[in-house]
């Protein structure tokens, strides 16, 4: 074996080691989170409210807030992202206007989430006077979510073959009718996967929420589902600390004695939820596709 071959072998061995190291990092992270965290997760932990000064608090309200904010943010951002993606993929021509729009979406997607959170604070909390509330949080998360969701939907629209569009137009449908009745349904599996993937990202976001949805989780009355009462779980104007914010909050200034247990348990629940989101994104998309096209 000559020198260059030896060199090649050596380099490739190094690359393998590097790749192995990256896998090890993930294995360590996931292992650490679950091994230290899951023993602290119990039914009681998931269903009881947090305690600020005593041990034995849970994360029920934070968990509920996280899901409620996620659902609200998705309901607000989906129509906007869908509309934007439809225009970008179906109508936009290659001109300066489209370029400007694409650039602004790129800028929005690369903005630090603190900056988005501060903008939400300035506009929704202070200017619109919504205070630290679910509403401010959901609107801020919408801004945070829009660029990625738009891009995901745009990609799945682009994956629909042009034959489908020509079929619709050939049958005499207008362009918009073709899009709404043919292209969007055909890309539904991709859109659903995109929504679930974005959900994972929104679910774990904290920096954008600290100054919009607030850092406190007041007690809720789970018998009262009237959204206009302030202690109802559905009330959009109550402050709502999410699970991700909770982890940050107790680690920066928490004083409960079982701080490590609570935060490792919360981290395990958070990562588990995101793992479920990521896995189901593939699974659900494929299932929807199979059902819609009867392709097995």
């Amino acid at each position, binding site marked *: 074996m000559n020198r260059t071959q030896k060199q090649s072998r050596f380099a490739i061995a190094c690359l393998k080691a590097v790749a192995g190291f990256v896998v090890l990092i993930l294995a360590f992270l996931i292992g650490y989170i679950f091994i230290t965290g899951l023993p602290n997760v119990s039914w009681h932990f998931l269903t009881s409210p947090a305690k600020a000064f005593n041990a034995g608090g849970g994360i029920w309200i934070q968990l509920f807030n996280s899901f409620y904010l996620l659902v609200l943010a998705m309901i607000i951002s989906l129509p906007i992202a869908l509309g934007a993606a439809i225009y970008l993929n179906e109508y936009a021509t290659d001109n300066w206007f489209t370029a400007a729009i694409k650039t602004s979406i790129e800028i929005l997607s690369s903005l*630090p989430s603190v900056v988005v959170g501060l903008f939400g604070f300035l506009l929704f909390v202070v200017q619109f006077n919504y205070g630290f509330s679910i509403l401010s949080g959901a609107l801020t998360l919408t801004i945070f979510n829009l660029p990625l969701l738009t891009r995901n939907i745009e990609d799945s629209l682009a994956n629909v073959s042009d034959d489908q569009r020509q079929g619709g137009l050939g049958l005499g449908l207008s362009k918009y009718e073709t899009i709404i009745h043919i292209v969007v349904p055909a890309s539904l599996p991709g859109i659903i996967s995109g929504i679930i993937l974005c959900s994972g990202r929104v679910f774990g976001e904290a920096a954008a929420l600290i100054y919009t949805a607030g850092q406190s989780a007041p007690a809720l009355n789970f018998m009262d589902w009237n959204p206009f009462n302030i202690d109802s779980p559905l009330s959009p104007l109550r402050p709502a600390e999410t699970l991700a914010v909770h982890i*940050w909050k107790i680690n920066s200034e928490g004083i409960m004695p079982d701080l490590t247990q609570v935060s490792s348990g919360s981290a395990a629940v958070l990562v588990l939820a995101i793992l479920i989101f990521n896995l189901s994104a593939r699974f659900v998309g494929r299932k929807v596709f199979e059902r819609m096209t009867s392709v097995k």
Partner: protein
Amino acid sequence: MIMENQKLAKQLMKKSKTARYERFGRLLSLSALLLIMAIVLGIIVFVASKGLGTFFKDGISFKDFFTGTLWNPGTKTPSGQQAVGALPMIVGSFLVTILAALLSTPFAIGTAVYMTEISPKRGAKILQPVTELLVGIPSVVYGFIGLSVVVPFVRNTFGGSGFGILSGTFVLFVMILPTIVSMTVDSLKGVPKFYRQASLALGATKWQTIWKVVLRAATPGILTAVVFGMARAFGEALAVQMVIGNAALMPQNLTSPASTLTSVLTAGMGNTVMGSLQNDALWSLALVLLVMSLFFNLVVHMIGRKGAFKK
């Protein structure tokens, strides 16, 4: 007869129901897009107007802000100026970003090369999901692990409190790794197959092909990936804030407590009153953050244009 013709003409000239529906749909989707654009402009205008207030309303000079090393808005420096020197945070932010990128890039490129050139099958089966999972882990969880693993490790190995630039670098290293890996993989996949075939046919070894042909051809894409990783590191708030120590001092060494733009922002915004100097100074930090984010975007665009030109 003429009357009827005119009526018919009128009917034909009118837009059909479908055409109106078409216009409505087009306008609807366009307005969604314009809304996004308005949000982006809104963010820039709002943050800029608040951030510039420090300089124009409170009369702090740019020089004091960017070169002062004493940060305690509301009090005065020994020489009698307002203590709003943001240099410690700016240095902290740049230091963690650059160190994390330096540490991450070789690992990321190595992993990406393994995934595309050496073992594409294992790459797609194991490493692809691994990078996706790493991207998905929320930043507070990184911060929590940093706090409970990295900080004690740094404390025991290098001394000090364990909070500081070094801990921040380690946390950011793991956080930006998957971003750089996945984008580098995309750019390596974009290198045409016949480049590799031509190189191998000339008698180059696999490594020579990777080093001298594939990586060279993919350089613009790899640079873009690194810049994206740096942008993520620069803007990352909570994970860094949890491990860096949050002391607005010039970093003496890598293990002394320091702070970044984002850490001071998240820690301080809640404790200040809107419109006060303390608050305005924080908005100026946010503006620096925003400008840097725009700058990273610009760099990506420029690399893209240069890279495209070469092909």
